[in-house]
Each structure stands twice: as C-alpha cells, then as structure tokens.
C-alpha cells in the first residue's frame, strides 16, 4: 500500500468546514494541541509506518 495522493474525500467542502469548525474560537495553543491530537488519531487510522512515512514526505512538500 502507498499513500493516496489523489482525490479521495467524497465531500471535500464538508470535511474542510468540519476542520475549521473544530478550531473555531480556540486559542493558538489549544488549536495546536487539537491538531497534534488529530494527527495522532488519523495516524492510527492508517496504521502503516511505510504509508505514514510517505504521508510525512508528501506533507513536507519535498520533491524526492
């Protein structure tokens, strides 16, 4: 399995709105904490170190 970098969200606008709503009204520190918890929750959904490494690379926008 490899990281899916093609469109995969059924309703992208809904997800984006949910993400913003979750951060609504939070301080910078609370938002940062929420993001960190979210990354960990999502990582557990993926559950594959190789795919996660590819995700980290994709997120870093590095070309190689």
């Amino acid at each position, binding site marked *: 399995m490899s990281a899916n970098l093609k469109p995969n969200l059924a309703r992208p606008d809904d997800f984006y709105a949910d993400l913003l709503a979750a951060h609504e009204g939070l301080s910078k520190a609370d938002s940062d904490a929420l993001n960190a918890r979210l990354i*960990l929750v999502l990582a557990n959904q993926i559950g594959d170190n190789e795919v996660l490494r590819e995700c980290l690379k994709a997120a870093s926008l590095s070309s190689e």
Partner: protein
Amino acid sequence: MTKLFETPLYPYQLSADQKADAPVRHPAVVIGAGPIGLAVAIDLAQHDVPVVILDENDKVSWGSRAICFSKRALEILDRLGAGDDYVNKGVLWNLGKVFFGDRKVYEFNLLPEDGHNRPAFINLQQYYCELYLVERIRALQAEGKQIDIRGGSKVTAVEARDDHSRISVETPDGPYDLEADWLIACDGAASPTRKMLGLDFVGRVFEDNFLIADVIMKADFPTERWFWFDPPFNKGQSALLHKQPDGVWRIDLQLGWDIDKEEEKKPENVIPRLKQMLGEEVEFDLEWVSIYTFQCRRMEKFRHGRVIFAGDSAHQVSPFGARGANSGFQDTDNLVWKLKLVMDGLAPESLLDTYDEERIHAADENILNSSRSTDFITPKSEQSRIFRDAVLDLAEHHAFARPLVNSGRLSLPATYDCSRLNGADVTSLPARTRPGSPAADCPLGEDWLLHKLGDDFVVLGINRDVPDSLSAHGISLKGLSLKGGDVNPFVKDRYLGNEDGAVYLIRPDQHVAARWTTYDEADIVSALGRVIGKEL
C-alpha cells in the same frame, strides 16, 4: 545495626603478588567489583580460568542505584548460580500508573508471557545484587576455584602491551604491579581504565540530571510503578516511584541540566518535594539521596587488543528502560565463552572481534531506545512538547494512544541478526528463535529448557534424534532430544511453528547459532566451525 553497605565485604589483604620479585602474570584480571565485574569473574571461574578482581573499594555500592533486573539478566544469573537469590529477594510488580500533571491518565497491568522460569523483571537494590555475587564468589572459592577479589586495591596505571597488560595497583601497604594476559575493564561509566588508555567515549551526548532517593515508608504503600509527566511537584520534568525489597521505595526526580546539585541534594529541599509527591500524611525516612548525571554514548570499539571493556565502561544509556546493568550482564554472557575458547587455543583471537560486533549492535539498540524515551519524557522543542502532551491527553481517553506513551521501554535482549557467527536458517521456523536470537525458555516438566542448556554448546533436537554428545573442532557438544510430552505447546510455538521437527545449535550464551529441520552431523560440525570463528 550495621547497614549492608557499611560493611567491608572484601577487605584489603596483602596478596602474595605484592611480595614477588617480578610482576606476577595472571590469565585474567578484572577491574571493578560492580555487578558486571563480579559477573565476568564468576563466569571465568566457572570455566576454570583463574581470575583476579581489583577494586579500590571493599563494600557494596551505596544506595539502590541499578534496581530493575530483566528476565534475560536473571537467566544469565541462573547460569552464574545466583538467580534464585535475586528472585527470592526481589520485588515483583505488575501494576503501573501513568500520571500527567495532577491527574492519572491510565494504568496498565503487565501480563508477562507464560512459560518462562523467570519473570519479566524484578526490582532489587544494586547492593543486594552485588552482595549475592560476592557470596557466590565465596562459594566458588570454597569449591577450590581460583577467584581472588582484592579490595582496597586501586588501579593507578594500565599499560596495554601486545600480548598482555601491565597494571599498577595502589594499596594500604604500598604499590605493586601485576600482569594480565587478558584485562577486562568493568570500572563504570567514568572508567579510569578507559581514561588511562586515552580511549574515546563518543556518541550522542545527552545531558540530564536526576535526583534519586531511597525512602523507607512507615506505612503500607501499594506495590506499583508510578510515573509522572510534568507533575505539580516537579514542573516540566518527570518522576518515578518504584518499590524495592525491605519497604524501601526508589524515587527518581528529573531535574534538567542547569541546576545547583549541592543545593538540590539538601534534605530541606528534597523532603518537601517528596511530601508533595507522596501526600502530606505519608510518613517516611530518607535513606539515601544522590544526583545522577547521564549521557547516551559508547566507545567506538569495546575490544582494544588484550583489553576488553564491558558494562557501563563501554556504553552508557539513560536510566529509562533499565538498560544499564541488564545490558552489562549480556556483555559478560557474550564475552566469556569466546574468551575461554581463545585462551584454550580452540578459536582464533578474531572471535573476540565478534564480541565487539554483537555487543555494539546491542549497545546501539539500547542507546536508540533510551534516547527515544528521553525525547518523549523531556521534549526538546515546543512542537515535540505539543505532541507529547497530545499523546498523554489522548491516552486518558483512548487505548490507541497508550502504546505511544514512552516512560522507558524495558530492556529486552538483542538479537544478533547480522552476526558473522550465524549459520544456517530455516525461515519457516519461528522468527523469535532465528539465528542470533536468545533461546526462549520453555517449561520441560518440572525443569526448564534454559536450565538444561546450561553453558555448553548444545545440539537441541525437537522431534528429531540427536546424539547425547558430540565432539568437533576440539569442543564437546551436549545433545538434548525433546520428544513426546516435552514437545509441549510452548516448545512448539517457540521452536517449531508449523514444522513437525527441528534441530538447533545453541551457543554457550544460549543464543541460537543455526537451525535445520533435519539432523545431519556434517551441518553441526560446519556451523560449529563458523560460530567459533573459523570462517572469520
């Protein structure tokens, strides 16, 4: 009552060497009578190698120091004849609690795997550990083994020569020199031997200070391991509470790097912290306080010709995970059989280079694990603190995050996967007993597999006939055939997998050298040649 650590156990005595006209040569000299030096010496004596231990002190160590002894260390101590003493005195615990700030985020129960003679680990003060090893030395002496422990004997100079070392010793009766064919330096993280030989001690420098205290509780307190992240009584740092025998509790408080050590050690500063930690109403006596500094580093090579380093003198880790003394015992386990074969002329000296290879691999594994624990416990950047806190907050609510909590990954023995000594493998047999791995214990009726292996080369046949004994390359091998009821579910699970039979060649340190699904004497002879270094 005189405390154990105030009693001279091996007081200075004038030795015959001091009256000799010329320096007396010994086959093996060990510097340092800590747990690792004592273990090396016992192992050598059990192999009938005369050995001298030199230590400037004459007592066990002051304070609890190393307190967690792992299953593999206990198995090695069994082979050295001291395992029962450790287990009978040591404290077994299963329940751990993790606190974050002022709240408990979760608790866990270690449910150790069944079918092993020894528990996952026990808690025991280092002074008992050393006492039992000194008692074992006295028993060996009574049996006539040549093992000489010289207290009050400070090594002041070491000169490494091509085929021996010259050692200068300072005693109450003045100095003398002696010589060693083989010198084993087990003189701790600050190893004077290493310094005298001008050798490196490099790697990732990782600095921190810990206040460690032994506390005697006056009332009952639960037998649990409590670990705090960022507790109110030690803001921004960590704390650990662990039970030891005799109602002594060990407390580790992390202090960070830039501190005034003398100030922190004063009882008027320590006691209020402990009261905040244990509760105002809990009565206790403070038995011992020390400040401990650590770095994660190792020597580039553990063997330097005829001088060999073992334990903390060769490698140093953070205390998280109990990887100091436990890995030191594994050093001795790896070293002594090789050294004995080389001394007897049965193996080339290059066999000792595999001590370096195998134990450096293990040291790197320990340094990696203990550095990762340290990174989790003391985040080094704002972002790493955010993630650490996220893990702890999630752990309170969701099981998935609990394996990410890293308050120390407890010491497991290294598997020497890339060792040049490893022979044939059959990959359909279980991965856990592949060549290079420590043989897994299994019950055999009232007995145990590791006990039966002992410290010989063993040909282990499971549902396969192997001879009771075999001789090759000048070495006697012991045969052990398991059949019928002895091939129980533990043996099947750990040694057969889906195969119906197997043959294992096991090294004297109880690591697997090679394995097959059928018995062929030529295979054994060839694998034995490899494991004693004939192909290096």
